[in-house]
């Protein structure tokens, strides 16, 4: 029985889960750091508890504190969302041992998949194709670097270094030439140690021109493990996805079926329960290779929800309560696209930005879904990941979905903080995106020297005129007025005035 759920997360995914709990008739509990006290997700929970501590480690990653709150609040389940503790097997285990239902797969499955090197080995054993490469188990810096150097000659260049405990592009480096290898390995290890406390990295052949295609799986305790078709998430910047869609434009029924079977085999191999995603690289020749399995709900789950009609988070809640999934056979309809709205400067190598959301007016109308963790008046701070919201559209065809996404992005107004809105909008006009021939290196290929907005002189003139008229008449849109803190002096990002490249 599940009747009261603690959501061990923040931002838009906490909102998503809290709303699902509400709809399922479950009581909900939010936990929040002091700097999140006025965040939207705190408002959506039935109860909320302040986390002691100033850093992420002391708050959203503090297992003991979170468990104590869970016990005191009398919750019978914990949903970890994504990021934070979602793939921490030790936490899943501690939760289970405290007699609280973990909404996700068992600790063993998390462990086997969470360590990317173990996952590769497990998948090889289960007959799931993995990317050619080598695992490096050495933990000592010097020995590891030596082993990496030796392995690199067998894997060949270009190659990818990936943190075994990694995710989200952290601790990942593409290496084109042998002479860059050691610098990249040191940097990857440093980032991996900082982020995960584990510097082990492994090597994979860099398969350029491939698509990132992933399969959503669901498994319940009643013997069913199913897949919900694929998502394509090839469009990435800094190894992070920004534009995701379902179905994949170039998918065939044959490949979908083979990939779906491989994904179900991967899940079954680790006795999976709940929602998970098996990521593959799909080569132009139709070959595909296991990349990793994310043992949690994923950022881009909405595109699958929109084409399949399955409420994945709601199914997570059902599965955790021991009920069978409610969804029947896979039935895909139309096309869905998601873009991630980041507070970042796309024209300055996607550097995160901060500031007030003085105006935050999302688009509206048919076929649009907004999963947001923020609303107008909020402040974007440097404390967390700069993803503000996800905009998802659905339409009967891919072409119509792209048209709808263009319209939606044109309507979306965010003022006060630099965002990637315009970058996303221009992505929709890229021939590769229109044709559906995106691959993981597209952004670097299209904009090797960085992206810049294509505003015409006339449009900039119009905007300058607007600013001048507004200044002259002392107005700005009344209902979207001042930032909340007067002490924000809001200069243009100081980087703007420097013509500086960021690698």
């Amino acid at each position, binding site marked *: 029985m599940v009747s009261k759920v603690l959501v061990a997360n923040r931002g838009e995914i906490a909102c998503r889960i809290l709303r699902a709990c509400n709809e399922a008739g479950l009581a909900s509990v939010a936990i929040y750091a002091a700097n999140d006290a006025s965040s939207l997700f705190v408002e959506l929970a039935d109860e909320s508890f302040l986390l002691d501590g100033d850093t992420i480690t002391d708050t959203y990653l503090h297992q003991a504190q979170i468990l104590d709150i869970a016990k005191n609040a009398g919750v019978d389940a914990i949903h970890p969302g994504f990021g934070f503790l979602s793939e921490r097997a030790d936490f899943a285990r501690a939760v289970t041992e405290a007699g609280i239902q973990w909404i996700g797969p068992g600790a063993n499955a998390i462990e086997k998949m969470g360590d990317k090197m173990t996952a590769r080995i497990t998948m090889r054993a289960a007959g799931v194709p993995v990317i050619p490469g080598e695992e490096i188990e050495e933990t000592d810096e010097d020995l590891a670097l030596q082993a990496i150097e030796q392995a690199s000659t067998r894997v060949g260049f270009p190659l990818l270094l990936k943190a075994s405990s990694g995710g989200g592009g*952290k601790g990942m480096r593409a290496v084109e030439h042998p002479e860059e290898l050691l610098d990249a390995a040191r*940097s990857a290890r*440093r*980032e991996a140690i900082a*982020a995960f406390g584990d510097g082990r990295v492994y090597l994979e052949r860099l398969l350029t021109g491939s698509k990132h295609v992933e399969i959503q799986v669901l498994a319940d305790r009643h013997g069913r493990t199913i897949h919900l078709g694929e998502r394509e998430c090839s469009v990435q910047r*800094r190894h992070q996805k920004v534009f995701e869609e379902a179905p994949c434009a170039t998918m065939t029924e044959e490949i979908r079926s083979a990939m779906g079977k491989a994904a179900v085999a991967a899940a079954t191999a680790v006795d999976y329960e709940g929602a998970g995603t098996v990521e593959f690289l799909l080569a132009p020749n139709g070959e595909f290779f296991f990349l990793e399995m994310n043992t949690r709900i994923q950022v881009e789950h909405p595109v699958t929800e929109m084409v399949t009609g399955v409420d994945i988070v709601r199914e997570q809640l059902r599965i955790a309560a021991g009920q069978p999934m409610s969804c029947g056979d896979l039935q895909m309809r139309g096309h869905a696209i998601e873009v991630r709205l980041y507070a970042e400067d796309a024209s300055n190598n996607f*550097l*995160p930005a*901060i500031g007030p959301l*003085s*105006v935050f*007016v999302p688009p509206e109308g048919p076929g649009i879904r907004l999963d947001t963790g923020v609303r107008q008046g909020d402040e974007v701070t*440097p404390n967390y*990941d*700069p993803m503000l919201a996800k905009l998802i559209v659905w339409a009967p065809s891919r072409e119509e979905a792209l048209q709808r996404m263009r319209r939606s*992005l*044109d309507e979306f*107004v*965010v*003022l*006060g903080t*630099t*965002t990637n*809105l*315009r970058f996303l*909008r221009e992505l929709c006009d890229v021939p590769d995106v229109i044709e559906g021939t995106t691959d993981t290196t597209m952004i670097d290929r299209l904009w090797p020297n960085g992206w810049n*907005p294509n*505003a015409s002189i*006339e*449009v*900039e*003139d*119009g*905007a*300058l*005129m*607007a*600013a*001048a*008229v*507004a*200044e*002259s*008449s002392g*107005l700005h*849109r*009344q209902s*979207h007025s001042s930032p909340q803190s007067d002490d*924000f*002096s*809001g*200069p*243009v990002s*100081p*980087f703007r*005035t*420097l013509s*500086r490249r*960021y*690698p």
Partner: protein
Amino acid sequence: MEHMFRTRGGSVDVTLARSDDVWILGEHRATVESDGRLKIHLSNGTSGFATVAKVGDCWWVHFKGHTFNFERIEPGASQSGDEGGLTAPMPGKVLQVLVEVGQTVNAGETLMVLEAMKMEHRILAASQGSITEIHFAAGEQVQQGSVLLAMDEED
């Protein structure tokens, strides 16, 4: 009415004229709606509404699907700015300092490595020159806009 704004391309002087309710900038026209929205009519025949917000000294403008921010430069204010200063793009921690005072550097050379938002950021030299000041050491916290180093640029 004259205003000066700092844009991506540099400083721009905007001198507005006014005729009754209509604002005039060259061949462009603008009107203010009763609810404070701005309608812009461009000389090329297109028109549209602009949404604006002021944050500190900066005007944010959304127009035709584009978002701009223009720092307003007070008339007569010092124009020095931070052209020669190398400032922290966001709050974070200094991971490494790779140069010393007096050192000559090339354009694009890494001067400092910061950690912010859980990622590494490198501070690069915008041009050739020599380092004149270093304000932070590895391990120190920096605020957004903190001047990290100064250099004499050889343009």
